C-alpha cells in the first residue's frame, strides 16, 4: 500500500506550480477571445490573380487586423477578422490590390456582434454557481455532512483554475481562442471532476459507515481508499485519454483545441480526486473529530 498522505507537500507544490504559471499567463497574456465573444468581420473577396493565404494573412496583420480564420479556395478568399469598419475594409482592399497587382472584388463584407454577449455570459456563470450549490446540497445529503461536499467542490475549483490557466498558456503558444467550445470544456471538466471525486469518497464513506477498519486513523482510511480505487481511476482516465488523444491527433480544425482542453480537464479532474479532494477531506475530518 502506498502511503499517499506522506507526500502532501508534493501535491501542494505541483498544484501551486501549475495553477501559478497558469494565473501568471492569464495576467501577462490573457486570452484571445474568439468571434463568439468579441464579434468580428467576415470578408469574402475574389481576385483576378490569387495570392496565397500566407501572403494575405501577412498583409492583414501588418495593418493590425487580427485574423480568426483565413481560407483561400480557387480565386476566392474567406476570412474572419477582428471587427473593422467600411473605411478599414476599403483600405485593406486597396493595399492587397497594390501589393499583389491584382483586382479585388468584395463579395461579402459583414460585421457581426458577439453571440456570447454580456448577458449570456452572466447567465452561464449564474447557472454554473447554481449547479455548484446543487452539488453541495446533494452531496451533503448523500454523504451525511458538509465535509465531503465542500472538499469535492474545492477540488473542482482547483481543476477549474488549472484548466483556465493552462488554456491561457495554450492560447498564447499555440493560438487557441477562448470560444464557446472552451466554455463547454469548462462545464465538462467541472462535471467530470466531481464525478471522479465521488468514487473515492464513496470508499471512504463505506469504511466509516461499516466500521471495518475501526481504530484506523483517518490517514490510513484515506490511503486505503486511494489504493483500492487506484486501478479504476487509472483505467478510467486512460479510456477517456485514448478517446481525446485520437481527437487531438486526428480531429480537424477547432476540434483540436477543444480536445486539448478536455484532455487537460480529464487529467486534472482525475489527479485532483486523490491528491486534492482527499487531502482536503482528511484535513476537514481531522478538524471536526
Amino acid at each position: 500500500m502506498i502511503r499517499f498522505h506522506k507526500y502532501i507537500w508534493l501535491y501542494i507544490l505541483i498544484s501551486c506550480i501549475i495553477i501559478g504559471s497558469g494565473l501568471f499567463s492569464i495576467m501577462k497574456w490573457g486570452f484571445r477571445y474568439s468571434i463568439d465573444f468579441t464579434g468580428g468581420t467576415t470578408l469574402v473577396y475574389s481576385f483576378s490573380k490569387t495570392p496565397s493565404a500566407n501572403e494575405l494573412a501577412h498583409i492583414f496583420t501588418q495593418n493590425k487586423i487580427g485574423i480568426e480564420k483565413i481560407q483561400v479556395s480557387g480565386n476566392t478568399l474567406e476570412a474572419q477578422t477582428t471587427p473593422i469598419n467600411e473605411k478599414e475594409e476599403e483600405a485593406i482592399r486597396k493595399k492587397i490590390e497594390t501589393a499583389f497587382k491584382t483586382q479585388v472584388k468584395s463579395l461579402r463584407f459583414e460585421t457581426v456582434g458577439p453571440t456570447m454577449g454580456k448577458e449570456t455570459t452572466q447567465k452561464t456563470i449564474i447557472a454554473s454557481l447554481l449547479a455548484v450549490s446543487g452539488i453541495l446540497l446533494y452531496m451533503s445529503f448523500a454523504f451525511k455532512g458538509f465535509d465531503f461536499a465542500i472538499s469535492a467542490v474545492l477540488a473542482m475549483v482547483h481543476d477549474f483554475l488549472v484548466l483556465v490557466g493552462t488554456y491561457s498558456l495554450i492560447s498564447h503558444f499555440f493560438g487557441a481562442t477562448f470560444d464557446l467550445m472552451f466554455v463547454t470544456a469548462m462545464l465538462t471538466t467541472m462535471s467530470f471532476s466531481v464525478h471522479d471525486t465521488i468514487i473515492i469518497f464513496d470508499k471512504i464513506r463505506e469504511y466509516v459507515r461499516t466500521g471495518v477498519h475501526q481504530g484506523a486513523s483517518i490517514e490510513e482510511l484515506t490511503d486505503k481508499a486511494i489504493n483500492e480505487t487506484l486501478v479504476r481511476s487509472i483505467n478510467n482516465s486512460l479510456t477517456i485519454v485514448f478517446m481525446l488523444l485520437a481527437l487531438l491527433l486526428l480531429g480537424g480544425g477547432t476540434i483540436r483545441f477543444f480536445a486539448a482542453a478536455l484532455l487537460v480537464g480529464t487529467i486534472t479532474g482525475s489527479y485532483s480526486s486523490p491528491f486534492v479532494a482527499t487531502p482536503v477531506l482528511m484535513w476537514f475530518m481531522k478538524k471536526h473529530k
Partner: protein
Amino acid sequence: MNSRRVVYAVLILLLVWMCLPENIPVKFAVNKSKVQFTINPLSFDIPLFGYHFKKEFKTKLGLDLKGGSHLVFRADISKLKTEDVSEALLSARDTIEKRVNFFGVSEPVVQTSKSGGENRITVDLPGMENVSQAVSLIGQTAQLRFFEEDTTQKYASTTPLLARLTKDTGMNGTHIKKSTVVFDPNSGKPQVSLQFSEAGAKLFEEITGRNIGKPVGIFLDYSPISAPIVQQKISEGNAVITGNFTVDEAKELAIAINSGALPLPIQLIEQRNIGPSLGAEDVQKSVIAGAVGLFMVSLFMIVYYGRLGVIATGALALYGMLSFAIFRAIPVVLTLPGIAGFILSIGMAVDSNILIFERIKEEQRKGREFHASIRLGFTRALDAIKDANITTLVVSFILFNPLNWSFLPQFGMVRGFALTLGIGVAMSLFTGVVITKRLIKAFYTHV
C-alpha cells in the same frame, strides 16, 4: 427462456434500425439479379382511430453542424437618439431571441451586426422549416397600447368608435406580466388573456375606473385589436382581449406580447440558407478520430478485462445506440456542445463498467466464488455509481433550466450540452447497471 431471447433479439434489431444512418444507397448483384435499395432509419406513419402516429428517427443537427436559415433584419434607428441606439439594438436582439425561442426552435443564434451604415440583426434558425411564419412573428414590433376617449374634445355622434380613441393612457406592453391563450367558456373562441404587473394593475384600475360605460381601445402597433366598453372598474389585474382570432393568431399575439415590444422597427432584407461553421472535412476527420478513439477504448477494455471487457464493449455499444435513438426520438438538436455532453456521458458509462469490474475483482481476491463476486461487486459498486451519476444529473438539470427561468441561460449551447449529458447519464445508469448485469448473466451461466 427461449421466447425471452426472441424478444431481446427483436428489441435490439429495432434499436439498430432506429440508429441506422440516413440515405445510404446500397447496390450489389446476387446471381445476376441486381439488388438496389437505400438504407434509412425507422420511420412510421400509422393511422389509428383518426389519429396519425407518426415518427421519424432522424438526426437533427444544429446550425453549427448542419447550417440552416439565416435571416437578416435591418433596424430602423431614425426615431432614436444616437446614444440610445446600441441599447435599443441589444434589447431588440433579446426580444427576438425570446420570440424565436417561444417558437420552439432549438439553438437559435441572434446577433446584432453592422454592415455599411446599417444596423442589422441576424437570426440563425437551424433546420427551421416554417420560416415564413417565424419571419412574420420576428418582424412584429408588437407595441401594445391602450387608448381612451379624449374628453377635452367633442365628437360628433357620427364619429366612428375607433376614431374617438385618441388619448394614450400611458399603459403599454411593459405593464403586462404574462399573456396566455384562453378559450371563451361560452363560445369556445380563442381569446388572449392579460395578467398585469403590479403597476399595470393599478394603472388599469384607474383607466377602467374613469371610463365606465366608455370604450378603451387595445392597439398593437397602432392597429386596433379590440375596443371593449368598460362595464365596471377592474382591479384584479386581469383582462381578456376578445377579437376574431383564430387559435394561431391568438397564439402569435400572446407570444408577441410575452416577448415584449421591439424597441425599434425592423425589416427583413435577407433570407438565405447557410452552410455549417465546421467544415465537412473537419466533421469527417473528427468522426474518424472518434471511431479510432472508441476502438482503442474497446481494445483496452478487452485486453485488460478479458471476457468482461467484451461484455462491457457490447453494453457500451447498446448504450450508445439507446442514447442515440432517444436523441432521435425527442428529437434533440445535436450541436458541438451537445456532442461534447454525449462524449462525457460515454466516459461516465465506461467508468460505471470499470467500477463494477474492479469491485468484482476485489470480491474475487477475497476468495469468493465467481457468481457471488458478481452479485456483491454489483451491489457494492452501485452506491458509488448512483451518487456520482445523480450529482451529474443534478448539474445537467440545473444547466438545462427546465423551468425556463430568465436569469439562467434560456437557449443556446449550455442547454444543448446539459440535455445530451443528462439523457446520456440517465441512460448509462440504466445500461451500466441493468444491461451489463444481464449480459454477464447470459454469458456466464451457459459456460
